[in-house]
């Protein structure tokens, strides 16, 4: 169990660092980001892409974080 945790700490830290630095970039350049994200037209993809990018990066971080701190689910197959 301890070995398993040690193996997973590297991706946890990597995803965590990527997520944190991405958030820092957004807030350092928040005026520019808002400007392009609210222009409409073809620029409508900007907020959508940001949402996908952050949910992927931060979601990956969360997926490593939760089992690491002991949050697990039990499998329960649903009958009708």
């Amino acid at each position, binding site marked *: 169990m301890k070995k398993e945790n040690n193996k997973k700490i590297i991706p946890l830290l990597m995803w965590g660092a990527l997520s944190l630095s991405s958030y820092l970039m*957004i807030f350092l350049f928040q005026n*520019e980001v808002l400007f392009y994200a609210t222009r409409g037209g073809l620029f409508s993809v900007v907020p959508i892409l940001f949402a996908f990018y952050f949910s992927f990066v931060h979601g990956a971080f969360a997926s490593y974080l939760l089992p690491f701190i002991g949050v697990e689910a039990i499998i*329960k197959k649903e009958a009708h």
Partner: protein
Amino acid sequence: MEGNSMGILSNFITLDPANILFLLFVGFVGGLVSGFIGSGGAFVLTPGMMSIGVPGTVAVASNMCHKFPKAMVGAYKRWKYGQVDIKLGLVMAISAILGVQVGIQIQEAILKSWGNAGSNLYVSTMFIIVLTIVGTYVFKDALNMAKSKDAKEETSALAKRIQSINIPPMIYFDKIGTKISFWVTFPIGFFTGLLAATIAVGGFIGVPGMIYILGTTSTVGTATELVIAFVMGLVGSVKWAMSGMIDIRLTLIILAGSLIGVQIGAAATTFVRPYLIKFVMGFIMLMVASSRVLAVPQYLSELNILHLEKQLLSALDQTSFIVMSLTLLAGALIIVFSMVRGKRELKKASTIAQVKVTD
């Protein structure tokens, strides 16, 4: 660029550390509740954002944009637990997309005619009506289930009658185990979408609709709602982005908290009995409705319909905020506590296999 952006930014709030921390907390609880009851993350978030001064339309738009990737993660997790009826989710989502289009048109028309105060009043009034009706029904049902000895979910009498309607096209749904007419699923999907574009929470119609009208279990209903939320959230977000209403900063802060919360909430569903899911859902709905009632006088005053003293308005506004915060905290504690207790019981029994959330 500065000149241009100032015009656009006037609709968006300035973020300070306190606001960011508050939004992170609200995002986490929103995610937790959303993963647990399958909907409702945004009903926590929309009023949460409005309580720190975000205009109603921007709050709804920014929520919708954070919701679809989160719903995608939640749907995937619940699908792995075998709880999602994908066909039902897609059939409902197609009708919901139509509802979202109509809902956004209504929002834009209100914003154009009455400004932010009109939009805030509209969003809050819809919250109060829907949350009170659905919350009371769900809460009563949860109490009845808790009282009954076997505490098993039974298909409602209404669902049994609906299932016997035979107007083509009839569609077979795996998790319900029977055929249901498209003309029954269509209005539920449509109004789910309409409500999603109005208050950013379609699940309040979608989930009870699937449970009480179509006859799914609450676990399947809440899980399938996540598929609908993903599809219509994506389509709705593109439409909101076209009109420049998404404050991407708010979207991303909320996402940071809720992506962690949603996975904890989804895992917690596997530990609890179905009546507890309904109990938490009903409780939060009724409390959030009361919090919105307290915020209405402020909007009426901004529209010059009601004239009250500033001090009274400010006191009402603060009380509304406190009621909201306490409700969120209570909801979060119930979910986390249930999970901890479930895990403890499981450890004692130590007979059921466990798998990690990420596997």
